[in-house]
């Protein structure tokens, strides 16, 4: 990215001043290496976000950002409903509430090594993953409504997990004010056999070793210890969320002119929060969030069943569950005044710091766990939210490594078998129904997650707690 017109604020922040049509400035969180490698389209897209009505403060770009549709992936922006602010389906994305759930096992990693192949095979058999896979659960219309209203709470009420799981999930496992009536019949149909499925692409279930501690005290609060085993589940709202995104993106794009919105890019399709369309989307999106929370809860249940076969006395406890494709109404302090804002985080996680009421009591002294997924051959990281992030980024941080090359380029460069063999040499077992899918998701197709995480820490968005190294990866 050409930075010649940017103001460099410090080693990890770049400001794009507002031009005539921008209502706000944009801030890019990146060190020199990351910003040099960032696509020029990221600048173009975040500048377009700055043109949307009712934007409050700066539009933000996280260190893992890359070219998306409408908002860049890694884009964050807040809007005030009472100042003409908008809600954007393109600012949330198709995979509503895609996120990561982290489970702790309490098992030393050596215990996994002893059963690694059998455990990988069993997980691959039990976790529905990839194109064409289906879950075992079929919901009636009323059950679907219950799921869309209740999310993780609904799943627990159906026997998929425990009440204490909910204490360690954003929104306590249930997004309030969801509106199932705003979810179309086609979206429901698309979800009919997808409850408890992982999906494909960059979604995964990984068994990981806590390989390095950076902050032992905070890790202890999170329930994490060096050389113990954890499980990360990365997936979202499946077909239901995809269809909600599809339908509202179209309706918002077509209706924008009638709603008095001059869209700089059709993909920034949006509607005033105070409009019928805006309210319908918000209700449907919240139902999508609940679908994702229920889905990850069911996958947690399936994972527990597999682990109980290998380790009968081991309880898998939820560490935390964080979504990174959402828009949430949150109170934020703007120039000393508390305002309720609609914060879009597209490919960005919340990162609330110590003392925030958004953080579960158990973590409130140290800040929320910020879960950052890596590629299947490298590392993932657990960070903790900071107080500074509230003023820097509406308490937001990066969500992953971010892609460094397209799927097409990756496919030209690697074969799935080659990647599988290379990773097996590093004692990382990959299970996937598609070798082509493995090639497209090759570790080398992603940015260096450590560089991204270091930048997030140096910028003050979150602070490192521990590093996770993959041992088993189930890919879709």
């Amino acid at each position, binding site marked *: 990215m050409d930075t010649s017109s940017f103001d460099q604020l410090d080693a990890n922040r770049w400001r794009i001043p507002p031009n005539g049509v921008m209502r706000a400035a944009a801030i890019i969180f990146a060190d020199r290496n990351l910003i040099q490698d960032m696509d020029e389209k990221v600048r173009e897209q975040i500048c377009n976000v700055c043109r949307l009505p009712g934007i409050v403060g700066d539009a933000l770009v996280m260190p893992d950002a890359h070219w998306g549709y*409408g908002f860049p992936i890694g884009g964050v922006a807040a809007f005030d409903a009472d100042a003409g602010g908008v809600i954007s389906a393109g600012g949330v994305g*198709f995979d509503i509430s895609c996120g990561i759930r982290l489970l702790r096992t309490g098992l030393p990693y050596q215990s996994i090594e002893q059963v690694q192949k059998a455990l990988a095979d069993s997980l691959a058999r039990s976790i529905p993953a990839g194109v064409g896979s289906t879950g075992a659960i079929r919901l009636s219309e009323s059950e679907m409504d219950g799921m869309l209203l209740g999310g993780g709470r609904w799943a627990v009420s159906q026997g998929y997990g425990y009440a204490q799981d909910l204490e360690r999930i954003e929104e306590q496992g249930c997004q309030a004010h969801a509106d199932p009536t705003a979810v179309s019949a086609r979206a429901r149909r698309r979800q*009919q056999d997808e409850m408890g499925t992982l999906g494909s*692409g960059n979604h995964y279930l990984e068994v990981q070793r806590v390989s390095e501690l950076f902050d032992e005290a905070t890790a202890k609060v999170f329930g994490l210890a060096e050389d113990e085993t954890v499980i990360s589940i990365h997936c979202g709202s499946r077909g239901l969320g995809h*269809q909600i995104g599809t339908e509202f993106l179209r309706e918002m794009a077509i209706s924008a002119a009638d709603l008095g919105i001059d869209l700089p890019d059709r993909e920034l399709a949006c509607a005033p929060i105070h409009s019928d369309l805006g309210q319908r989307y918000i209700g449907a999106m919240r139902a999508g969030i609940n679908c994702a929370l229920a889905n990850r809860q069911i996958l947690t249940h399936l994972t527990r069943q597999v682990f109980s076969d290998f380790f009968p006395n081991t309880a898998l406890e939820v560490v935390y569950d964080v979504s990174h494709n959402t828009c949430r109404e949150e109170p934020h302090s703007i120039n000393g005044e508390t305002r309720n804002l609609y914060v879009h985080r597209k490919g960005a996680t919340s990162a609330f710091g110590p003392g925030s009421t958004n953080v579960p009591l158990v973590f409130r002294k140290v800040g929320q766990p910020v879960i950052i997924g890596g590629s299947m051959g490298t590392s993932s990281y657990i960070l903790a939210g900071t107080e500074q992030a509230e003023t820097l980024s509406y308490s937001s941080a990066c969500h992953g490594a971010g892609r460094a090359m397209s799927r097409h380029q990756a496919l030209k460069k690697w074969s799935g078998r080659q990647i599988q063999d290379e990773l097996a040499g590093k004692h990382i077992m990959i299970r996937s129904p*598609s070798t082509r899918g493995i090639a497209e998701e090759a570790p080398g197709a992603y940015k260096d997650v450590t560089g991204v995480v270091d930048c997030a820490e140096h910028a003050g968005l979150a602070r490192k707690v521990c590093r996770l190294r993959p041992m088993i990866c189930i890919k879709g």
Partner: protein
Amino acid sequence: MTWSHFTHDADIGLRGKGRTKAQAYEEIAMALTAAVTDVSQVRPRKGIRVHCTAPSDEVLLVDWLNALIYEMAVRKMLFCDFDVTLHDGELSAKITGEGVNRDRHQPAVEVKGATFTALNVQHTTDEWVVECVVDV
């Protein structure tokens, strides 16, 4: 008549070309299937009908791809043959394919939806070119 993919960071750009607009829409549908699997591995065993209407050619292209994505998702099918008729903002098509066979098709990604990014319906001197980025 040809289809191809173009680069987009995390997602996939689809392109279809044809002597007629309908042919270009058929070709981009093939590019959609190719984003998931090797199209030569998909057999034309079952046909279904799809119908879309839209206020513009570009929105119709998004609707067409989203209709295919929807049918792929709910029927667990992949499609390899497309017979498109366009008339005054309406698209009617017969699409033919088969159920997903994970061993044979090795499906790489699930397509979530068609976006309005890099959306293009263009008539050059001798052909139609249609382009769209899909989220995967």
